[in-house]
């Protein structure tokens, strides 16, 4: 059920990328798609009644191994978020440059992107 909601979020983002005609809207839709995938990855690592993957002195190792959530997807998502930030920054830079040239964010008013 939760996975399906995540997929729905992904599809909303995909819908925005496919149908919108404004470059900022396209950037936003891509950001939303990124969130959906990140959330999906973190959900994959969740354990029923789990604890965060940080060891404190009071719990013993065996019990911790039984209850900790999966740290690997969290590490992956950290990397993925940063990559998303980089792509977004570059995209916004191009959008600003395009705006300087055309005075609009609308791709239907730009020449070659229509095809």
């Amino acid at each position: 059920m939760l996975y399906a909601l995540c997929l729905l979020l992904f599809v909303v983002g995909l819908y925005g990328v496919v149908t919108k005609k404004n470059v900022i809207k396209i950037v936003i839709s891509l950001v939303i798609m990124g969130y959906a995938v990140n959330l999906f990855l973190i959900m994959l690592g969740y354990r029923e009644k789990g604890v965060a993957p940080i060891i404190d002195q009071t719990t013993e190792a065996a019990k911790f191994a039984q209850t900790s959530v999966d740290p690997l997807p969290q590490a992956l998502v950290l990397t993925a978020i940063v990559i998303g930030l980089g792509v977004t920054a570059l995209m916004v830079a191009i959008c600003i440059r395009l705006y300087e040239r055309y005075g609009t964010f609308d791709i239907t008013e730009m020449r070659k992107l229509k095809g």
Partner: protein
Amino acid sequence: MNGEKNQQSGMTTIVRTVCRWVVGCIFLFGVYIVLYGHLTPGGGFAGGVIIACAFVLLTLSFGKEVSLTKLSKGVASELDSVGALMFLIIALLGMWTIWGGNSSPILFRNIILVWTFISSVLAVFLYVTLPLA
């Protein structure tokens, strides 16, 4: 600094007074997050971005000129390269250690060191992105 010009590019007095107090705290908090990344949640990247946010705040409230006097663009992009190179060099040193027959990568294990370097790199990176917006 040129007061009039700052008045134009920045925000109102209230915002600027509050910012003057808060920026230092944000900066310290960022450093704390970096240094304790191996024990508590957060770490180099998060701390680095928080430090970067201090500069963002400066830019937003006082204008680009003031924050550029604190950290100029040339210095920032130099620091970028230095930080990234440091990370790479540490990684390569780890490689040599392994090659020497020692199976445990001693330098890779020095978490705080690497962590701090990444953070400084990223803080500066993000700061450099700001003028584009």
